[in-house]
């Protein structure tokens, strides 16, 4: 087994673990962490697979730098939104979010007419 393949397999495992976390975890903060693991896995595959005979290829290194910047921006936005959701509802876990979205916007059919939150964005 070559070094490149080892990195790639580790990267794919990290990616799979992270993706499973984003889908399956309830707490939003954990999902953000899982997304970061997922992104690291993809970057590891990008850098690891691209070595030619043990000599690293500079192009994917530059790409991974860009990828890290994107991941930092996405993480920052996610954290800001989670803080706002926590301030507005007192919860930061996916379950309550799930219920609220189902009750107010997701299902659409069971919406009480007088509900204030759902229509606020339209004003």
């Amino acid at each position, binding site marked *: 087994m070559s070094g*490149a393949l080892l990195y*790639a397999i580790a*990267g*794919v495992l990290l*990616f799979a673990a*992270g*993706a499973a976390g*984003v*889908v399956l975890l309830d707490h*939003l903060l954990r*999902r953000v962490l899982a*997304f970061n693991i*997922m*992104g690291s*896995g*993809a*970057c590891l*595959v*990008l850098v*690891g*697979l*691209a070595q*030619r005979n043990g000599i690293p*290829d500079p*192009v*994917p290194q530059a*790409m991974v730098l*860009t*990828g890290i910047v*994107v991941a930092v*921006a*996405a993480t920052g*936005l*996610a954290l800001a*939104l*989670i803080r*706002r*959701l926590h301030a*507005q*509802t007192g919860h930061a876990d996916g379950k309550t*979010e799930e219920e*609220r*979205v189902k009750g*107010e*916007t*997701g299902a*659409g*059919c*069971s*919406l009480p*007419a007088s509900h204030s*939150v*759902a*229509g*606020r*964005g*339209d*004003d």
Partner: protein
Amino acid sequence: MTERLAMLAPLALPLLILLPLAWAALAFVLGTGRGSRLAIAAAAVQLMLAFALASAVMDGGPLHHAAGGWGAPLGIDLVADGLAAAMLLLTQAVALPLFIFARGYFHQDGARPDAAGHHFWPLAGFLVAGMNALYLSEDIFNLYVTLELVGLAAVGLVASGGGAAQTAAALRYLFAALLGSGAYLLGVALLYGAFGSVSMATLTPLIAGASASAGAGASEVALIAALLMMAGLLMKSALFPFHFWLPPAHGGAPAPVSALLSALVVKASIYLVLRLWLGPLAPLLTPLAWLPTLLGTAAILWGSWRAIHAERLKLLVAYSTVAQLGYLFLALPLVGVGSTGASASAILTLQALAHGLGKAAMFAAAGIIIHATGRDRVDDVAGIAERLPLTLFTFALAGVSLMGLPPSGGFLAKWLLIDLAMARGHWPLVAVILAGGLLAAIYIFRVLRLAFLNLPEAVIEAEHHKARVVPRSAEWMAFTLAAASVLLGLFGGLPLLQLVDGVGAGEGVTSGVTSGLVPGLTSGAVVGAP
């Protein structure tokens, strides 16, 4: 004038990205809620640039620009071909009227903007810059970066509604988008590992060669990469089983944001699906072409069903988006040309444009109606015909294009699609397209029927009392978008098909479509008879 526009064309590639970035940053510096005039002026310039670019591409073929003079593989190459030019034109053509609409919508109470519009201008600028960069990108890694730019700006816009429901919808959208682009990035990493390039032009022959010599390891890696990229992009495109994030995000945002998202943002990832599926990844994915078609069919049926039963007006429009996006996946197995000589990708571009203009108009009209009545249930549109005749007309005109009634752009696209499906002998697709049109008629006439109801005098009096003023400019801009969607079928269709199909195909398309349109009008009457 035309020569001057042609001289502008090479400059248009970098300017279409730099200009929105510049005014977005300026709008942010100016402070909350400001920068609307700047944005509108810049959007007008961008529309002119996109026109210059499209006419130059039509006359002289694809244009290239090496960003900063570096060129691939170290730098970034920008390329505008017919498909990219058409999508750029759609983006600017929807953005300009929507920005004028948004200015009226957010600034209706004097100079102080609505809280929901505080961060609209910078975010909209970054969104447009990201989309323009996406359409101009030539390498699959730069496409990843632009995809993320678009996604992050769109999530910010969804959250700008301010309520807890909007924040929750924005988070759900963000996680779906990140999961999708993560899968896409892993696919890019695998492709780079196998072939050592991210340029689409370089990858196309390499992938074709690898898949021709089956058994080589590169072919399997490329297939896995292709599947990952497609799964990620379908997630971002909200194709049927992945549509869960779209209705709350699009239905809950302020009206100008919903219109931007539904008309433009989902098109960006669908553009990528088409570009990759019909381009570099074609040798790998062609055997799977029926899968997205099946999902698209399910999207048309399920989205229409939910729209018919939606309680809230904006959810109705959002579920209509889920259904209309399904059409864009129907033609993937129909590579080649039908009796009219128009290719599948040209027809899909036409459908994307018709839906983009029509849906922007419909969300804008829905926003005006909700603002005027102060409530957002479908039942609340009762009696609106007397109070907002222009806006209701806008809603109906946009509906004409979504249903696929002649002479709208939606009709032309759906009719060409039916023609192509019949040329290939795929009769079930014809049935799906016709059924989709009928279902769209049901949910649109549901709104129109209620709007013309006669309310008791006392109720009308009470409604008038609490009615809020909607700026005329906002109403007229929504109408402009709807009219453009209809006029697209009359005047814009042929040049657009020629633009996407390239210079050589131009003659065939023109004669084919004009000769085919006569039977088309009769079959269109069938589509439109609910």
